[in-house]
């Protein structure tokens, strides 16, 4: 239900590519790199990139082109980082 609500808010997920993502405590999580059916992928860093697989349901809001997610940076590191 929650993810359906988010899907209604974001009608075109593809438009989020290249937008910056921040955690709930204001940490930079990177830039949206790709959109998947249930997730969006962000990458952080210039040479050895950290990559995060973030559920679409985690999206909290989009403000002035910046995407905010519900979880804080510690949670993101522990649960969403995959590379």
């Amino acid at each position, binding site marked *: 239900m929650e993810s359906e609500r988010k899907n209604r808010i974001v009608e075109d997920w593809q438009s989020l590519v290249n937008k910056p993502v921040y955690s709930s405590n204001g940490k930079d999580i990177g830039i949206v*790199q*790709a959109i*998947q*059916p*249930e*997730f969006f*992928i962000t*990458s952080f860093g210039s040479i050895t*990139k950290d*990559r995060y*697989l973030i559920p679409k349901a985690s999206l909290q809001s989009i403000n002035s082109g910046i995407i905010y997610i519900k979880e804080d940076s510690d949670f993101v590191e*522990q*649960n*969403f*980082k*995959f*590379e």
Partner: protein
Amino acid sequence: MENKNLVNDPSYHPDQGITAAEQLLSSYKEFLAQSTKLFPKVDQKLLLDIVHFETTYKDWEGSVLIRIVYSSNSQVNTEKKKEEIYEKYQKMPEEVKEDRTLRVKLIRMYIKNLEELINSDNDIEFISGSATLTPSDSYSDSP
């Protein structure tokens, strides 16, 4: 000017005002939507690259570098997963992210093999990576 091939297409109706370009883009979007629906756990670029190589080059060896991401919610034993992959493909994956991601270079990984891999392990949350035209031992890859 109307596209002759499109005009010859019995499904084309000039009254609808659909150009060949619009129809092609629409078909491509439908194809992407279908690929997402059929392979929700696979990165779309990887999927399309495999489809492209597999259908274009009949002698393509199915050379891919894949990253298998396991669910962070389940307590996955990555050592066991490594052994399972080794038994199946005779290639030992390396661990990229502790308890979460394995990376392995494989050959003969065609679309049907990718489907089998996903269906064989419910712990797999996502597969990304790249397909290459020729096999390589190198582990450097573009994102």
